[in-house]
Structures are given as structure tokens and as C-alpha cells.
């Protein structure tokens, strides 16, 4: 389907694969951590498309000295715990690839190493048993991986220490010994000379985290104190991150009985005055939609996270898709001016979470914060300065103290829905003397009292809309700009596709402009950029082009579309080929 590029950046691609239950995830994570601690950039992907049948799982790492922001269709070193791991990755392996395996494992005895590749047969289980237990088999393999890449094993020691130190020094030392046994075996038995796979180290200090963790950390930084949620892939890791951490800052996490409850608990906490959040995926968003209308109508600040996965219905719960945009923009009965913010990188997930809380309180409104599976489960390195906590600013909006209540009261009654110039009303928290009021999903007057008065109805609808309009005019809504500003071809995208597109630009021969759009509602006006280009292509992970529709709606211009909905994220090389195909550029093979 897509052409392949041989002049990829100087990166290295590694994977460990086997059956579910083989400890693949934790093995991959340890190696990623070791690379990060060695001052290398890392980009991981956990979920290969299973092309034959279920049960197979793999953890892939792309690493380089320069930042890496996507996955590619290439594999240099593979630790294969099963024959199927090799079969599954045949199209990514290449002449010169190294396959580490245990020829003493019954299923691997007669395994065929493809031509022109190097099989490195290491008795993983036996060496692990010698070091203290067969369970350390995968760590022996990591040691072997150090040997074939010339990677200093002290970095692996450090990662093993981080992983196992809470379980005692003996376990750490056993694992470190197991790794050395694997390294030593390869050094003794194989004369490997593969300078192209040599993994250099640097003194850089990186942190390694995934999108769900970035959202969780952003929430705590933003002063979120209450989280209610119901477990759902791929959003659960947000709740798991917060649990045990938010308590240190005076907060609380509650696992609700369902998503209906989760959003209503978060609503209650927000009405009481806490910064509150819930996170879910598409099916949960469906359940929360009725209450979303209540949150908006009662003018309650709340952050609702949608970590999108493949739908509709149960769809492919562990696969990538960006199919929820329309439901976030339009879901629910009635008309609700709504805020939708979609970070485009893992680091941005942190900052946009902080901003989502500020927007929510500044405009007294629910804010949808949108991520996707690819971002949620990917671990990526960043310089720690990227998460500068001193740069976090909190804006609680028009929150009054007791002394200001009277100014906003009429005949002793507080006006929580006063129709102000910018639509934002004064807000008091329960417990404030004299501020008593009811909040309701019924249409209401300035006092919060139910009404069906025609002019009050119009005033209140207008004032809620006005908040949105003012936000559209006054918030920066900054677009992230890449490539050549004067280029004839303009790429537009949203969500986690940014990294793959940025890398694709580097692979293309001719200049292309790329705008990555994190604000979907209210959103920046892209009319000028679209009119300046001779060709506009909108890239997104869904079938119909929901963002492309939005661009056409806003700019009254037709756009081209590149869509992917097979459950797998865009890869830089396949995307470059697709763009080259559309633009009739030469494909630099």
C-alpha cells in the first residue's frame, strides 16, 4: 500500500514480542527506561496489529539521539519469545536484522531465521535459572540486546533498580546478574559486528511518560482535587496515575459504579468548588452526554477527558481511532456551546490539561479534553524542563468571596446567572454566607429559579453563547505550525498525528506546510491558510474525515483527505508516501 523509505533518520528500532502473559510490556518498559536514562530519546508503541489471531503481543521502541515522534515500519533487533513473533514482523524486519531467541525453548527449537538476518540463539531460561529464577528469562534477553548494540549495561542496571527496588535488593541484584549472563553469553558465543546498531549514550536527563500519565500529572498541577471515573481502555491509566498521588495534594479518587455516576460525582464536586475531572473513552462519553448538558446549563466548570479508541459500540477497544470528534462537537440534545481541546503531543497533553481547567473556571463550562489511544499508551522521552511546574498558572475566573456577594445580589438574593457583558456570571461556592442559590438543568433566571419566560429564556441562551464567542475572540487558540510557510501544499491535522506528520515532512523532497490544530471548539479561523494553499490535505484517523468536514464548513473550501481507520496509528514513512502520492511529488525511494 505504501512505499518504503531507506533514508530514514539515524534511529534504531527494537521490539520484544511473545504471547500475552509473557511479561512483554514490563520487559519493553524496562528497556525503554534504560535508553531514557542513557540520554537517548525514546518513542514506544505497545500494540501491534494482530494480523493472524489473538494472543500475540509486542512492545516496540524507536530510539535516537534526536527526538523521535512516531513509529516506522522497520525493525533492527527483535527479541522473539515465540515463532509467531517472527512471522508477525516479517515485513518490518530487513536484511541485517538481528533476532534474539531461545533455541532451547520447545516451540523455538526448529525456528527458521529468515535469510540474510542474524539469529542469536541464547539459552534465556537456563541462564535465568542460574541467576535465580526462570522468571528473569526476559531480562537475560535484555542483556543479550545490550551485547548486540554495544549498549552500556549500567543503564539497564539503573532501570532494573527503578523497576524492582521496592521489592528488595536481592531481586534487583538477581536481575542485574541475569542481564549480565545474557550479555556475556552473546559476547562469548557470537562475534557480532554491527556498528549501525550501536547505541550511543549522552548526558541528557530525560523523563519517560505516556499520554494518560501526562494528563494525570497536568490535572494535579492544575489543582484538580477530585476525580471520579469508571475503568475503560484506554483511559484507565489516568485514574491509575492519580490514585495514590492526588491524595498527597489533598485530593481523592473514586471509582464509580458507572460513567453516569462518574460524571455526576465530578459535577457535584465541581459545584462544591473543587477542581474536578473524569476521564473515559467513547462508550463512556455516550453515557455522560445527558449530564454534559446539565453541566453546561448549570454553568459548572468541569474537565471531561475522552481518550478515543476505535468505535462504534465496543469496536476495537485496544486500537487507535479519532472517531469521536463529531459526538464531542454535536452530541446531546439541545444546543450547547462547547469547549473541545485536543492536545497533539504527550507534552502538550500536560499543558492542555492545565489550560482545560483554567478555561473551565474562566468560562464556567464543561471542557472536553480529547486524547487518543496512540497518545495514551505511547511512552516518550522529554527533557524534564518541558514540564516546568513553575510555569503553571491557575485562573479560577470570576470566583467571589463573601464580601462581594452583596454587590451581585438583588433583594438579598444572589445572581449566579447574571447576564453580564461577556456572559460570565459571578460565582460563589457553597458555604459562602448569603450566596445561597439553586443550580438546575431547567431553564432559569439570573437567580437560578426555573422559568419559561420568553425573554429570560433568550437572555440566558444568549449569555451562555456569549461566553463561547468571547472565548473565541480573546483566547489565543494557537495553531502549531511546521514545514514551509509558503508551500503550495497545506496539511491540516489534529490529535496525536502531529509527530508522524512532522517526521513525514522531513522525508519528502518538496516543501509542505503543516498546521496542527489543538483547539477544535472554539477554534482558530483557518480560512486564510486554506485560501493561500493550492492543495489542502486533512489527515486524520477516521473514515469520514470529521475534521476535514469542519474545515470545509469553516472555510467554504473543498479539501482533500487522508484517512486511516484500520486501528493502527499513522507511521511517518507510510504517511510520507501517501502525501507524495497526492501531491505527485517524486517518491524518494
Amino acid at each position, binding site marked *: 500500500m505504501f512505499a518504503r523509505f531507506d533514508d530514514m533518520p539515524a534511529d534504531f528500532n527494537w521490539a520484544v514480542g511473545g504471547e500475552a502473559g509473557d511479561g512483554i510490556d514490563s520487559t519493553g518498559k524496562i528497556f525503554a527506561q534504560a535508553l*531514557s536514562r542513557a540520554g537517548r530519546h525514546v518513542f514506544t508503541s505497545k500494540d501491534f496489529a494482530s494480523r493472524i489471531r489473538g494472543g500475540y503481543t509486542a512492545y516496540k521502541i524507536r530510539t535516537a539521539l534526536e527526538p523521535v515522534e512516531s513509529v516506522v515500519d522497520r525493525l533492527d533487533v527483535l527479541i522473539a519469545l515465540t515463532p509467531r513473533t517472527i512471522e508477525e514482523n516479517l515485513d518490518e524486519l530487513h536484511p541485517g536484522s538481528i533476532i534474539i531467541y531461545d533455541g532451547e525453548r520447545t516451540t523455538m527449537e526448529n525456528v527458521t531465521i529468515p535469510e540474510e538476518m542474524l539469529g542469536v540463539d541464547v539459552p534465556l531460561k537456563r541462564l535465568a535459572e542460574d541467576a535465580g529464577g526462570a522468571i528473569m528469562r526476559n531480562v537475560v534477553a535484555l542483556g543479550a540486546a545490550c551485547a548486540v548494540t554495544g549498549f552500556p549495561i549500567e543503564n539497564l542496571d539503573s532501570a532494573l533498580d527503578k523497576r524492582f527496588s521496592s521489592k528488595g535488593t536481592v531481586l534487583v541484584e538477581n536481575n542485574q546478574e541475569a542481564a549480565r549472563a545474557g550479555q556475556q553469553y552473546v559476547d562469548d558465543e557470537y562475534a557480532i559486528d554491527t556498528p549501525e546498531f550501536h547505541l550511543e549514550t549522552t548526558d541528557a*536527563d530525560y*523523563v*519517560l*511518560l505516556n499520554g494518560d*500519565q501526562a494528563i494525570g500529572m497536568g490535572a*494535579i*498541577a492544575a*489543582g484538580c*482535587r*477530585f476525580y*471520579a471515573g469508571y475503568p475503560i481502555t484506554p483511559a484507565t491509566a489516568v485514574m491509575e496515575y492519580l490514585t495514590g*498521588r492526588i*491524595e498527597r*495534594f*489533598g485530593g*481523592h479518587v*473514586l471509582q*464509580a*459504579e*458507572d460513567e*453516569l*455516576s462518574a460524571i*455526576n*460525582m465530578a*459535577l*457535584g*464536586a*465541581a*459545584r*462544591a*468548588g*473543587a*477542581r*474536578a475531572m473524569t476521564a473515559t473513552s467513547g462508550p463512556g462519553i455516550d453515557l455522560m452526554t*445527558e*449530564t454534559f448538558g*446539565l453541566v453546561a446549563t*448549570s454553568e459548572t466548570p468541569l474537565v471531561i477527558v475522552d481518550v478515543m479508541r476505535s468505535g462504534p459500540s465496543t469496536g476495537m477497544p485496544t486500537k487507535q481511532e479519532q472517531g469521536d470528534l463529531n459526538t464531542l462537537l454535536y452530541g446531546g440534545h439541545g444546543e450547547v456551546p462547547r469547549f473541545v481541546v485536543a492536545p497533539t503531543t504527550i507534552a502538550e497533553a500536560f499543558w492542555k490539561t492545565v489550560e482545560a481547567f483554567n478555561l473551565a473556571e474562566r468560562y464556567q463550562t464543561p471542557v472536553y479534553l480529547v486524547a487518543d489511544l496512540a497518545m495514551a499508551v505511547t511512552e516518550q522521552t522529554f527533557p*524534564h524542563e518541558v*514540564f516546568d*511546574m*513553575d510555569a*503553571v*498558572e*491557575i485562573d*479560577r475566573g470570576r470566583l467571589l468571596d463573601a464580601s462581594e456577594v452583596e454587590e451581585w445580589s438583588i433583594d438579598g438574593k444572589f445572581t449566579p446567572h447574571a447576564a453580564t457583558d461577556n456572559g460570565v456570571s459571578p460565582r460563589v*461556592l*457553597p*458555604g*459562602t454566607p*448569603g*450566596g*445561597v*442559590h*439553586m*443550580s*438546575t*438543568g431547567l431553564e432559569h433566571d439570573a437567580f437560578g429559579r*426555573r422559568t419559561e419566560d420568553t425573554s429570560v429564556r433568550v437572555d440566558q441562551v444568549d449569555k451562555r453563547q456569549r461566553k463561547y464567542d468571547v472565548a473565541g475572540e480573546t483566547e489565543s487558540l494557537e495553531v502549531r505550525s511546521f514545514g514551509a510557510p509558503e508551500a503550495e501544499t497545506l496539511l491540516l491535522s489534529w490529535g496525536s498525528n502531529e509527530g508522524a506528520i512532522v517526521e513525514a515532512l522531513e522525508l519528502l523532497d518538496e516543501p509542505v506546510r503543516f498546521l496542527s490544530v489543538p483547539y477544535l471548539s472554539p477554534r482558530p479561523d483557518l480560512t486564510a491558510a486554506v485560501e493561500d494553499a493550492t492543495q489542502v490535505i486533512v489527515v486524520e484517523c477516521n473514515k469520514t474525515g470529521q475534521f476535514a468536514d469542519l474545515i470545509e464548513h469553516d472555510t467554504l473550501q473543498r479539501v482533500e483527505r487522508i484517512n486511516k481507520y484500520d486501528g493502527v496509528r499513522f507511521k511517518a514513512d507510510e504517511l510520507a508516501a501517501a502525501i507524495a502520492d497526492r501531491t505527485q511529488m517524486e517518491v524518494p525511494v
Partner: protein
Amino acid sequence: MSTEIRFTDFKADTQPTWCPGCGDFGTMNGMMKALAETGAHPDETFIVAGIGCSGKIGSYMHAYALHGVHGRALPVGTGVKLANPELEVMVAGGDGDGFSIGAGHFVHAVRRNLDMTYIVMDNRIYGLTKGQASPTSRADFETATTPDGPQQPPVNPLALALAAGGTFIAQTFATDAKRHAEIVQAAIEHDGFGFVNVFSPCVTFNDVDTYEYFRGNLVDVADEGHDPTDYDAATSVIMDREQEYQGILWRDDSSVSYHTQHGVTTPMTEIDEGAPEGAMDLVREFY
């Protein structure tokens, strides 16, 4: 508070639109009396209501309030109480709100045992939508949507609460003002989830479960020497469907509320102007 709070301080100046004679008037009066009696203040009280005739109660009481979507009042109350444990949180709703659309939340709110109070105005009918069967309607109760009656046994909310590990289960009658108010007060003072099912007759659409019916058939367990801390005795009155009971049916004096268990005792409302102190440790964890 410097001035003493009277129960009328909890009354809003909005005129209720409940039908004249509706049980909800008595239910609400008892709630206001109980709140005043416990020393609660309207500024520090939060009422959560759902949808239905009962759901209007937030408009008629003077306190901070949220009138939410149908069936989700208990989760809202849970969030309010956890975010600010200093607030007195009272959740009120009807039998449809609590035992039909919100039944799932009821069971889990009971077992979670937050220190809050849940008042159900049980009139055994859907009144606001003009008379359809509710989950507590009798099996042969004829309505427009159930011409032969629901032909299902009515839900026993008391038994649901008991099975879910309830720590305070009571039933009152809206017009027995004194008993109703004192039992609601006990529910408020209970350290845990205080559940009070109130017979609150619908005078317009229910001609079976009427004031007259309850007056003639209600037994007050206090008159029978019932010990509410005796689990077996509580089980037997709660499971008895041949008789209508009033009183505190079950009370677990060893109840420890969710807040105490989880150490959630400080309001979450105050936050820093930047990231909280120690936030940089979160970044360091990712080295």
C-alpha cells in the same frame, strides 16, 4: 452561627407547585425541622434533587442546591460531600428517581456509606407524568401504561439497602410530622448513609396508597419494642411485605463513614495560584 436557625430559615420564598394535599409538603417540613434541629445552617447545607415532583424540592428549600438529571442525585451528592465534607448534604428524590432509573446508584451509595442523608418521597406512582406505574407500585395497580397492573412485585427499597450493607434504614409517613422529623434528624446525625423512605401519598393519581390507607395500616416499630440495632429483628421487619412499618428499622452503631475511612475531611476548594508545592516530584518520578 450567632443567631439561632429556625426551620423556616430553610424555606425558600418560591411557592410550591405540588398539588394541594401532596405528601411532599409534610416530607419537606420534616426535613427542614430536622436540619434546624441539628444546628445546620442554610449557607452550609446542600440539597440535591433529581427529576419528578420530588425533584422540585430544591426550589422550595433555602439552601445551596442542585437540581440534576433524572436518577443521578446520589452521585452528585457524593461529589459535593467529598469535595467539601463540611457541608451538610441531603439528597432527596422520588421512588422513580431512586429505585428505577437511579437504582444502580442507590445500591452503591448505600454500600459506600458517605456521611449524608437520602430522603425518598415514595408515593408508589409517577405523578409528574400524570400517573404511570413506579417500581414501588403494587402488582395489580392499574395505570394507563399498565392496564392490568405491572404484574411484577414492587421493589422493596429497605431490603435493597439492607442487602447492600446499609447502616441506617428507616421509614416514615409524611403526615406523622413529629416522628418523621425526629427520624430524619437521626438519619442526619448518623455517621454514614442515612436512608429514610417516606410514604408521601400522591392525592391526584394514586387512589390506593392513600393517607387513609397508611393511617389504617402503619405500625410504628417503636411501639412494638423493636431494637433497631438487632440485625435479625431488622431483617424480619424489612422483609415483611404483609405489613407497612414506620420507624428506624436498622441502625449499625459501628458504622464508620467513607470520609473517616478514607481520611477525606478537609474541603478541596482552596488551591494554590500555581502548581501545588511538591509537584516537581511528580516529574522526577518519570526519570
